[in-house]
């Protein structure tokens, strides 16, 4: 068992740079999830750790040892692939035993380890079957088993659940988490699914365009997103964004319409005077209030009743009831997640207030967070 150090890692394919210097320190036994949209370089990063892809620049260390020049087999890692990559001509048993045979373990030792893993993964009845005779979830478990038996320093997962149906995905997600906890093995897990990321991770790495935009616990990423990208990517329905301004005092926040929101308790250090900002609010942090306390007014356009919640999609109104253009998930529309017992009809005007600390202010030019109020 060991930590993984990823330091200023860069990847170039010819002239195209796909990873622009990523650094992650993975502690021993930690479960790190790398999440980001398709094509942002998650797999490339993982494959560089595995040794399947050459590292153009920077350093990868496993258990304190730099592995840049080592073959995959010498890195003491195991990997689960998206398509499971089970050897189709071998039985489940042989799939799991393959690496151990190569490592030169005795027949008894191999049997013992495979049996143990099979018991853990409830694969005992299937040891003689070929992969094609298994269901998706069982194949997934065999792929896990193949990793476990080798007792590696770290598990690497590349979107291991994306070929499963929704229900099985939830179940396997739990199993992977429990397994990792009980074995205490360091895990690096790649996914584009933010729910998977939130539920599995000890810490999240949110990637975008070959850059790690934020590395933190799921809750901190959710509560204090470092950039507008992270804010929009994590959370469902996505965060609402509105154009606004930071006052010259570095404290006052106003919407572009002139409607004042709230002031920051302290001026932002080095704010550089009045500037355009992006204001972000999560749909679940909007609450229906009386008109006097209202910060935002929404006119409902579409109401979705989900039972526990009522999701209202509407347009933002200024104090003269004119529509204010915003840039939300649905274009000009903002979303508010209200309790299920609130009755809202299309066309209703809703006075809303943002929860304390849930108003995120981002620099409009750089997209970086300035403050949360």
């Amino acid at each position: 068992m060991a930590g993984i150090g990823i330091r200023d890692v860069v990847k170039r394919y010819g002239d195209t740079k796909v990873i622009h210097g990523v650094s992650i320190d993975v502690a021993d036994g930690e479960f790190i999830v790398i999440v980001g949209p398709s094509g942002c370089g998650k797999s490339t990063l993982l494959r560089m750790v595995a040794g399947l892809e050459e590292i153009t620049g920077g350093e990868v260390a496993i258990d304190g040892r730099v592995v840049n020049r080592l073959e995959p087999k010498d890195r003491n890692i195991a990997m689960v692939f998206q398509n499971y990559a089970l050897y189709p001509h071998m039985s489940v048993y042989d799939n799991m035993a393959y690496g151990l045979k190569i490592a030169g373990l005795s027949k008894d030792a191999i049997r013992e380890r495979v049996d143990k893993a099979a018991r853990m993964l409830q694969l005992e009845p299937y040891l003689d079957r070929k992969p094609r005779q298994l269901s998706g979830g069982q194949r997934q478990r065999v792929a896990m088993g193949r990793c476990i038996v080798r007792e590696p320093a770290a598990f690497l997962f590349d979107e291991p659940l994306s070929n499963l149906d929704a229900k099985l995905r939830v179940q396997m997600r739990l199993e992977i988490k429990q397994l990792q906890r009980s074995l205490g093995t360091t895990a690096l897990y790649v996914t584009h699914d933010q729910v998977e990321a939130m539920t599995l991770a000890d810490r999240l790495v949110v990637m975008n365009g070959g850059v790690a935009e934020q590395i933190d616990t799921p809750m901190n990423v959710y509560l204090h997103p470092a950039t507008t990208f992270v804010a929009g990517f994590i959370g469902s329905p996505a965060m609402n964004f509105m154009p606004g301004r930071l006052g010259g005092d570095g404290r006052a926040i106003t919407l572009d319409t002139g409607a004042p929101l709230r002031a920051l308790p302290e001026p932002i250090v080095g704010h550089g005077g009045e500037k355009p900002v992006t204001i972000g609010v999560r749909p679940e942090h909007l609450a229906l209030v009386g008109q006097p306390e209202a910060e935002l007014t929404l006119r409902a356009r579409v109401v979705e009743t989900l039972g526990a919640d009522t999701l209202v999609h509407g347009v933002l109104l200024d104090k003269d009831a004119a529509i204010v253009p915003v840039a939300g998930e649905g274009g000009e529309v903002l979303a508010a997640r209200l309790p299920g017992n609130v009755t809202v009809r299309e066309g209703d005007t809703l006075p809303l207030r943002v929860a304390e600390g849930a108003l995120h202010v981002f620099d409009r030019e750089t997209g970086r967070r300035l403050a949360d109020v």
Partner: protein
Amino acid sequence: MHKKVTFRGFALPVALLLPQLVVTAIFFLWPAGQALYQSVLRQDAFGLRTTYVGLANFERLFSDPLYLNSFQVTVVFSLAVTFLGLAIALLLATMADRVIKGASGYKTLLIMPYAVAPAVAGVLWWFLFNPSIGLFAHTLRALGIDWNHLLNGDQALILVVIAAVWKQISYNFLFFLAGLQAIPRSLVEAAAIDGAGPMKRFWTIVFPLLSPTAFFLLVVNVTYAFFDTFQIIHATTSGGPGQSTTILVYKVYSDGFVGLDLGSSAAQSVVLMAIVIVLTFVQFRYIERRVQY
């Protein structure tokens, strides 16, 4: 879902089957029947009288040392052609699978021999190895090997093997390459992580997954070596020297059409038919079963 259509009556199904049946009958069954019929007859030297001789043609055949020698030549030739043709094509395909730059040019070059007519291929190799004017023969002589396939039977056999293999490599290469490219990269990567080196990966992962392709090619290549190499041999050595490159198919031709011994030629054809049946049976019955996964 597709629905099974059942035709009523008798006339329509027969009409639909007729073209196939006619072709089979005229081009396969009738010649086969003729061969069977001829194999129990004997004609005199002038073709004037034909007598029924029972199995005498076969008895004569199997006591003829030249015929038994031809059997041996065929076995050596077929094994060599099949093995070399498959092995070299597999090697080339494995290498082509890794090539990224200029891959299509490389592949096109490898496929070109297939477009060369067998007779032309035979002549080409005849030229290259011609003892007096051939480039390769010259080079070999410079290396101290006295190349003269017009006199040396073993060298003649090597020459026809080279020509026959060269002609067939393209075909094998194409199938092997397609087979290799159908193997997911992640399997090989998983094996690499599991600790297998390149050779181990090839023999334990890649090759077993290629075995259906390899089996198919085995059948095709054995058939090719047995029956389709006539033109190459005809153009390169004409079966010589002294019948050292006369494989069974070639002997059917030379005894029947050159030697004009129709009875013996027909009996040889019947033996060949029997061999085809046995080969096909053995291949599908015993080998194919092992390559399923």
